[in-house]
């Protein structure tokens, strides 16, 4: 069992500037932030290293940080430009009993993150969901299509904070 601090030191030593920082000021969960283009090699190392052996991806969640500049539109809604979208990875080791939270952030306008589907099988669907809901693009993903929303949904990504409902979809009224 290793603490997040120990793992951070290990990672920092091995990957140097690809590991950005260790966030431990907020309550409950410590997070290690890494670069979006190197997340694949980092989780692969975390999985294959004998001492760490993170064999299970618990959860992959996309989050809209909504930290860009907000400008009001005429109809009262908001539009956000700039800022970042983030992805959180909760991984654990089932035999060594330790957990870790990783985070990557990518710019909102071009949110590209390396896919980790070849390291953890279940990441495939989780990544498709994050793409569907937030528009995060996972590079090298084999089949990055919408998963929950209809394939022909062209009104944006519903979990972004500035998402606006369309009036009609295929002739059906959307608002109440």
């Amino acid at each position, binding site marked *: 069992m290793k603490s997040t601090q120990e793992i951070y030191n290990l990672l920092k030593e091995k990957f140097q500037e690809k590991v950005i920082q260790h966030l431990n000021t907020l309550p409950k969960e410590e997070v290690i932030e890494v670069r979006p283009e190197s997340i694949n090699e980092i989780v692969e190392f975390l999985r294959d290293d004998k001492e760490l052996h993170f064999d299970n991806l618990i959860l992959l969640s996309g989050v809209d940080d909504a930290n860009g500049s907000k400008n009001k539109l005429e109809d009262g809604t908001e539009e956000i430009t700039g800022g970042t979208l983030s992805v*959180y990875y909760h991984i654990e080791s*089932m035999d060594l009993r330790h957990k870790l939270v990783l985070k990557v952030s990518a710019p909102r306008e071009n949110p590209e993150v390396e896919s980790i589907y070849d390291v953890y099988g279940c990441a495939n*669907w989780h990544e498709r969901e994050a793409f569907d809901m937030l528009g995060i693009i996972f590079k090298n993903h084999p089949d990055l299509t919408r998963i*929950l929303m209809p394939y022909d949904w062209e009104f944006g990504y*519903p979990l972004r904070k500035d998402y606006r409902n369309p009036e009609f979809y295929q002739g059906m009224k959307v608002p109440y």
Partner: protein
Amino acid sequence: MALKTEEMVLNMGPQHPSTHGVLRLEIELDGEIIINVKPHIGYLHRCFEKHCEAMTYPQIIPYVDRMDYLASIYNEFGYAVAVERLLDIKVPERVEYIRVIMGELQRIASHTVAIGTYGLDIGAFTPFLFLFRDREKILSLFEMTCGARLLYNYIWVGGVSHDLHPNFLRQTKEFINYFKPIITEINNLLTYNKIFIERTANVGILPLDAAINYGITGPNLRASGLKWDLRRDDPYSIYDRFDFEIPVGKGWMGTVGDCWDRYYLRILEMEQSLKILEQAIEQIPDGDITSAIPKRIKPPEGQIYARVENPRGELGYFIMSKGGLQPWRVKVKAPSFVNMSIFGDLCRGHLIADVVAILGSIDIVLGEVDR
């Protein structure tokens, strides 16, 4: 000269009695052999996560119910555990016991549906009727306590909404005594039925390494042979006080991790749930149930991931707070969603008739797959 064959694409669902809801499968066939299955989900996507961002913490509980509608109590349980950890609330003893009793009753109710509809898929109608009869008994226990049959809004952050009815413990005891012989009956009726075994043993084998790689949890993972149960391995609430076993798949009728193992594991789990229930009823203390319910829930900025062992696997809530009355982001690890993602691999190389058998054995609830 070799015969030329052509592949055929068969569409199954979204309206199909054996897809357990609205699931569409696109099956590629070579004769009767499955080459590839592509599940299309999202037909029941009800925007749970968007609702969370617009609701206050207590308002979310009814939506949580509607996710996995066969195990509502457990969804609330998981959510309450997550928010309580975020707020550092300690709930009273009696509440913990009530939660465990309700949770285990719900587990039995959920497994009866899983087993009953599995029999229905394979072609056995009687177990379905028998088990729904018994499920009604559990539902009436819930109804007595909180007034609802299916979606309860019962477990609140820091407590529960109503105390137990004075008759509840007696009737639960009666139910336990009633249900024990039923398990034997179901075993005789379905489990050891020759046709049933032929249809399910050695079908849809899930090897352990693939299961871990795909993050499969719950009975499906245990049927593949790993003793991993969050009630033991990451204890929450008061599960560390009870004495129960964690059954694992042994390949009783065929190979470890086949459909029959997954099915039989649910029966064994019901027995263990009865065991937990008996102990909890013995030990439940008197006391207050509402003292720890906070007046206003406003967690500090931070994030938490908390998980519980739902009847279908690991149900986890990732809650991110930015200090407001509403959460900034709630993401659910839905066991059915994850379990469903391996379905294509499980089916490959089997006959078309086995699709139904495999799908029933992984026991998904579409409300949770799509949220």
